[in-house]
């Protein structure tokens, strides 16, 4: 147990409002790191920080809110949530609003929102709900059904096109199946199938700009001023940071605006440039801490649905980290995935903390349940 037992009174107060302090500490530290980095990456713009703080506040509030909802309610809502989500994705494809070259938004008159964000939670909930109805490990048939639940929204989102989100959603569903005990031979088979599917994706599903990103990823130097520019500048920023970094606000790549998307998707490059390898190790330690706490919560959860959902949310959180760091440092092609809780931006922040809200619900409510 990571939870401190020195102050049982205080602990119980947090438990009453369904806050997992161990998890919250990790999240807050990460957010603080994010604010510090955004301040540097955004050119010391205090207004940027204010807007981010407001978003964090909203997101934390959503987290707190979701932590109050009983697990049973999530379990029951899963299927409706999922169906609503899929319908909205279809609606996006039919009458969605186009922005930044992709059709991702639904305009509800008052607000524009991305149904794909909902699916980040709806898919693991749905799959977890479905799989947990049976004895684990699940049967082949159930796994196949589970895959269908994953593939449908994934393809709908990939069609928008939003490769980053569809990747995150696919992995969140697959993690549920994996944690549920899907057999290794099946895992191997699926891996092979996905590999076989790759060329199909390339020729039929991927848009020109996505293909370009992949080509650029393979050889960024081929077009140093065009599509390769981002990744080259990003690698220069990271590499020139060295072991100890150039110091906060001292990163020349970021301060002199050679780095693109400095405070959003490429904030990791800013961080690496200014804080170096030591800083990165520290940052990774925080992420590791959150993931360990998340998996602990999953293991301590009482029923299969909660276990699977908590595990999936935690591992998907790691996928964000891996994909973002991978793309910024040139290991993966550039897909639009932010560095979770560090990158500037609203939507993903709310979705991520909503996920952690569910984790907190799982973490704190099981106690209450066991006491009853």
């Amino acid at each position, binding site marked *: 147990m990571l939870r401190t037992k020195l102050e049982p009174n205080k602990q119980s107060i947090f438990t009453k409002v369904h806050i997992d302090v161990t998890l919250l500490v990790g999240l807050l530290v990460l957010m603080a790191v994010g604010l510090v980095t955004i301040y540097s990456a955004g050119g010391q713009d205090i207004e940027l920080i204010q807007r981010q703080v407001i978003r964090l506040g909203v997101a934390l509030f959503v987290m707190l809110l979701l932590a109050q909802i009983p697990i049973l309610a999530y379990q029951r809502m899963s299927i409706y949530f999922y169906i609503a989500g899929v319908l909205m994705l279809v609606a996006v494809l039919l009458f969605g609003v186009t922005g930044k070259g992709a059709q991702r938004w639904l305009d509800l008159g008052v607000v524009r929102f991305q149904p794909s964000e909902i699916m980040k939670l709806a898919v693991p909930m749905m799959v977890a709900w479905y799989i947990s109805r049976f004895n684990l*490990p699940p049967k082949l048939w159930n796994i196949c059904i589970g895959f269908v639940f994953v593939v449908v929204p994934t393809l709908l989102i990939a069609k928008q096109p939003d490769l980053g989100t569809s990747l995150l959603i696919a992995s969140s569903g697959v993690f549920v199946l994996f944690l549920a005990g899907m057999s290794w031979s099946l895992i191997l088979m699926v891996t092979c199938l996905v590999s076989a599917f790759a060329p199909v994706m390339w020729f039929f599903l991927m848009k020109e700009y996505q293909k370009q990103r992949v080509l650029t990823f393979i050889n960024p130097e081929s077009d140093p001023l065009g599509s390769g520019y981002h990744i080259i500048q990003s690698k220069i920023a990271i590499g020139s940071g060295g072991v100890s970094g150039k110091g906060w606000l001292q990163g*020349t790549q970021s301060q002199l605006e050679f780095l693109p998307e400095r405070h959003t998707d490429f904030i990791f490059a800013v961080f690496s440039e200014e804080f170096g390898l030591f800083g990165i190790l520290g940052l990774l330690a925080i992420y590791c801490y959150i993931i360990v706490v998340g998996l602990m919560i999953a293991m301590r959860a009482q029923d299969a649905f909660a276990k699977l959902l908590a595990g999936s949310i935690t591992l998907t959180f790691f996928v964000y980290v891996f994909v973002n760091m991978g793309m910024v440092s040139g290991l993966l092609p550039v897909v639009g995935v932010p560095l979770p809780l560090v990158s500037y931006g609203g939507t993903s922040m709310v979705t991520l903390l909503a996920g952690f809200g569910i984790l907190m619900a799982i973490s704190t409510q099981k106690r209450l349940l066991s006491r009853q």
Partner: protein
Amino acid sequence: MAIKRVTIKDHSAEANLFARRSFIAMLLVCVMMILIISNLYYLQVSKFDDYQTRSNGNRIKVLPVAPNRGLIYDRNGILLAENRPVFSLELIPEEIDDLDSTLAELTTLLNIEEDEIADFKTNMQRVRRFKPVSLRNRLSNTDVALFSASQHKFPGVSIEARLARHYPFGSALTHALGYVARINKKDLQKLNEAGQEANYAATHDIGKLGIEKYHEELLHGEVGYQEVEINSKGRIIRTLNFQPPKPGKDLVLNLDVKMQLEIQSVLADTRGSVVALDAKTGGVLALYSNPSYDPNYFVHGISSKRYSKLLQSTDRPLINRATQGQYPPASTVKPHLALAGLEEGVIDSETRLFDNGRYQLKNVSHVWRDWIPWGHGWVDVKKSVEVSCDFFFYDLAYHLGIDRINESMTEFGFGDYTGIDIYEESDGNMPSRGWKKARYNEPWYIGDTISVGIGQSYWTATPLQLAKSINTLINKGRRIVPQVLRGQMINGETVLDPLKELQPIPVKNIENWNLVLSSMYGVIHEPHGTARAAFVDVAYSPAGKTGTAQVVSIAQDAKYDAEKLAEKHRDNAMYVGFAPFDDPQISVAVALENAGGGSSQAAPIARKVMDFYFKDKQLELVKTNPDDNPTHIQQ
């Protein structure tokens, strides 16, 4: 689907399975983190030097800084060429989306004229890509203010402030001092060949003419470097390092600008030139060619209209008449020829001839006439110079022969470059048998030699050559190369350049030289001297020789009538001279085109120049008669 199977969940087995899978997932997380860390280790540790270099390469630019061009002073410390700040409107065509509309907008804003746009478009073709091309070169303060207020509307257009050359005396010094102008492709090519491209990386102008061109290397200085940090848009954020440029050397010239101005006003509208040399050092005291033009227009990019006007002017102001004007020297070379005759022993001081105005050779029908139709009667060599007797020199030339004339006149520098520190120079022509053969494929005729005896025939010389030859004469064969550059100004002190000298002409008998010089004194001081009238009541005992050169040959027995001849066919008026006679300080050559007689037109100009020179000199000018004190000048 309705799956209603009653199954008993084995919670502990499920928990174990989940824990195992979570553990494996955690392992995978660790593996991937290690993957990320090792990639970052590769970037930040293994490749650190690489990326640090590339990062610095991104942000650090080394900008060349132009050195300040050396200033130029006259011999009295008067500033002749200075550097003034100017603002010019510069466009980088490659950075402008719609050049035509930008030009149109600038036209309404700053009243840009059509000429300026036309010149801009021509210049655009000449300038390298991504280099600024100037639209207007000297912006007024109003222009600067107007543009600055709306600069944001004009990407790719900027105001450049720099130091530009200014010549406060304008046209008075153009041919000697020259000017600088924008470096063009040809200049670049030359700089490349000389390995000087880097040194000129930030330099805007280069010497194009005169001293500015000849002493470019001294004047330019060495480029400096500014290491700056730039952002991704290329804007300079701060200076990291500054290696200041080494400014060019400040030069002091032998020229006296006041004398230049005097000559300019004296010549007025006459086409011609005046060269004044320091008799002792060969320093060029004055070198003026009329008409002249304002060099400042060239510095700022002369408009094609103005330039073609200069180019097409029948007065040919662009020619440096003092160094490039090739005139028949006419009678001005009689002293030199007399000396050659004396030194060669063809004549001596006693040789007398009877000049009846008509020189004839046995068996030759041609008659060479003296300028006085009835002749000068009995003449010796001294009187022949004084009265400019042609008859005597026809005979002298006949006896000397072209080969000996050519040899000794070449010693005086005729037919060769003087070596002055100005590139715009002609070598004139000292004819010879070989030259005529090569040039016209004709043999040398005796008649040619006889014309050479009075400085005509194919013989041409520049005023500078004449002045230099006079210097050689008064220095008894010592040949000092005329130089415009006097030295360098170092810490407010003039450090003189050493004199340049050629091997002196071997003197056979110094008396011959004295005789010739005293004959030149006689030209002014004897009652029959041709320049006596021009130098009445002169205080500084000058000596000289007049010359009147035929521009077109006049048919046998035809009379020269200046009034009837077209102006361009009138005689050139020439004069050479020096002063004071016993201790020469200045020698002067005057050549006036189509002005008429040397004694009536050129000699008075020479007098005014010398008057000016001696006006300020607080010298004890001793009137000396060489006949009274012949040994005085031998020292």
